[in-house]
């Protein structure tokens, strides 16, 4: 899945199968935020093939390691988001205990 020229670890294209904008756009964000990255971008070569190509060029570190760190960062952010969200839900439940009158009147049982 990694395409890079021999002896040059800094520049590489990673081909991620079964992924789309969902992951690639989020990864592009975390990669761009990394000071070690010169340029990164992604493309979807064909709309009916579930695959994205992520291009990473770094200032010196191996692109593979930088991408791994970007994934790690994204995971840490997700974990923090999940923790914060759960806390917020619990807090709002504490403040107003679940009432049974569904304001939308959508659920009939």
């Amino acid at each position, binding site marked *: 899945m990694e395409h890079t020229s021999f002896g040059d670890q800094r520049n590489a294209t990673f081909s*991620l199968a079964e992924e789309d904008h969902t992951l690639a756009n989020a990864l592009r964000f975390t990669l761009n*935020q990394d000071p070690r990255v010169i340029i990164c971008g992604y493309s979807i070569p064909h709309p009916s093939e579930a695959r994205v190509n992520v291009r990473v060029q770094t200032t010196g570190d191996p692109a593979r390691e930088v991408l791994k760190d970007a994934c790690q960062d994204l995971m840490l952010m997700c974990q923090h988001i999940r923790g914060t969200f759960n806390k917020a839900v619990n807090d709002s439940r504490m403040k107003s205990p679940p009432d049974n009158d569904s304001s939308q009147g959508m659920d009939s049982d």
Partner: protein
Amino acid sequence: MSDSEPEAMAEADGVPSTKLPPHLELRRTRVLCKVDAPDNTDTIQYSGAYASLGHENSLRFADFCKDFRVDITRISDDDMELDMVGVDPSIANAFRRILLAELPTMAIEKVLIANNTSVVQDEVLAHRLGLIPIKVDPRLFDYLSENDTPNEKNTIVFKLHVRCEERGQRLTVKSNELMWLPKGSEFLKTSESLTSTSKPETYTSFTCSQDSMPEFAGNPIRVYPDIIISKLGFGQEIELEAHAVKGVGKTHAKWSPVATCWYRMLPEVELMEEIEGEKADVLKQKCPAKVFEIEDLADGRKRATVARPRACTLCRECIRDGEDWEKRISLRRVKNHFIFTIESTGALPPEVLFTEAVKILEDKCERVISDLS
């Protein structure tokens, strides 16, 4: 951005990150809604974008944790609204896309029609049944792959048998007529079964009844009631079995766990000068979303204030009448503040849907890491 590294890096360089000048900070954090089009809509992601100004644009994890905030503004059994503050649109959009297309639910995939004399054709009827939300936790089930036999771990069977018996009457068939069959299919496979002495074969092979599972004991699986499936005239009849399996929204929208899920950026309305007297009345009248209110000053003058910026739909009515108004009011959107709405179809409560969506994004990252190692 991994925990401490960039922080150490910035300090090592001896360049403490400076604040951006206000006009650049505005362009970095706000979308400006001008009369003809929104301006400055992109987010500046590159860490070195402001390097020449000595401003570090990279996100430090510690700062992210400090600034990130979630406020629940509304929550009920089937929908919720939350404010997600301090996150990039790429991440918020990932959650939205996962909620719509990648969270599994159960939906009717196979319909075995024994008899259908209604005016709704078989294929249309099957399609309508497929779209009915099933109130069951999909995490209790497995995917049914091509070579699997349908069993109690991957299939839910419903029966529908209705007939209009009254002359001159019309019978409305609603989704609550679908009866759950915890023991699996009741239809026999016809071919060779007559001669064989073994137990007659049905279209599913359940090893045990689903209602003996602790999750469903005393808690039968139901579908969303009150959905009209068909209408029957006198003598018309529908007899069928519907088999529901697990799937995701990108295969077919019937598996999407949300009716819809969207976000909007927080609107921000600023008055660039004092708007008083008659003009204040005009402004209040202009706004269909009732964003502005009039404040009575001590000396009897009236002044316009922004009372409900959140209600602003950015219709731009208030800045439409000439350049004067454009100068008086600045309509903006906060780029990292998302008002996120989730409407569940009923399979899972909305707060569970959101946490599951975040988990799916984590799994995707983990998969990439393990592929690279």
